[in-house]
């Protein structure tokens, strides 16, 4: 059984590595990137079942990364992470094609549920039954 491969893109290194470890404990295969450019390059080189993307990042921001991902492959489900910096960012992400958005800090079960829904919609939902 293949674990869902999930790309995490967030400039808060401590956050992204800890979240990756927690997802790994739950049987997923997370890959962490700490800036938009690295995340975008990984998206173009490898395939992912879902992408978890922070909105506010220095350099290439989350919404810009989302637009580029969607232009490259519109089928990859992207779950946006927002703070409360700009309340309109979450809905804006949905307009640009994001699958869902979560407000930090969130419950990991809520994230797993979104990943499950995203992977099911993209057709990779049956590949994994560990969580």
């Amino acid at each position, binding site marked *: 059984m293949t674990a869902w491969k999930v790309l995490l893109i967030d400039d808060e290194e401590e956050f992204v590595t800890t979240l990756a470890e927690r997802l790994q404990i739950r049987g997923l295969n997370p890959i962490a990137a700490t800036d938009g450019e690295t995340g975008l390059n990984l998206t173009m080189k490898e395939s992912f079942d879902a992408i978890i993307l922070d909105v506010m990042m220095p350099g290439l921001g989350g919404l810009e990364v989302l637009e580029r991902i969607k232009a490259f492959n519109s089928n990859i489900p992207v779950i946006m992470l927002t703070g409360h*910096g700009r309340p309109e960012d979450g809905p804006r992400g949905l307009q640009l094609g994001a699958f869902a958005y979560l407000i930090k800090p969130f419950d990991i079960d809520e994230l797993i549920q979104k990943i499950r829904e995203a992977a099911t919609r993209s057709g990779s939902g049956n590949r994994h039954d560990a969580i």
Partner: protein
Amino acid sequence: MTQFRQTEIAFFGRITAGVTHELKNVLAIVNESSGLMQDLMTLSKEAPAYHDRFLKALTSIKGQVQRGQNLIARLNQFAHAPDIAVRSIDLFETAGLVIALSQRFAALKKVTLKVVPPPPSEQRAQATLNLVQFQMALFTAIECWLSLAAPGNELNLHISRKENTCALLLVNEGYFPAGSDPAGNLAAAEKWPLLQNISASLGGSVEIDVPKPGILLVLPITPK
């Protein structure tokens, strides 16, 4: 309000909103780190001696993260108030935010503060006004009452709409000793003149509702 004053307030709001975003990230890291500790404790086969104590402490951390999250969400919403000077607002929602942000001040005086739930017909009461000034008026009215309130008093905010105005009545449901003059004391409160100025700036008025006793703010629902 002058253009420069408006710019100053907007600057304050922008900085505060930026900081709240950073605080969100702090909470997110605390949340994930405590979650990871909980995951590892749950997975541990050796059942360490402090297992239960650790899990209790982690539950406490989670609770505080939630508390911090609520506070930051309110602070962020407040910080965004100056983004657009005059806007359409939901009166109950906005009053609820001001009441929530004022709870700390009320708690210091051992006073209970709440918005009386609106009747179903008024649940979406809207008004177009200067949001910062509206929030300030409501907070100043609360301050006026708090300067006089005794421990155990209950301040209730009633909101209603009548044609082209909205009325906000902040009533002290507490007990007043015989011979005391709460209405007269309110009018003599240090912040009362400020409350009158803000109300006038919003195109409305403020008066003391004697029989309750309460502070009655009457504001137009569209700018004059």
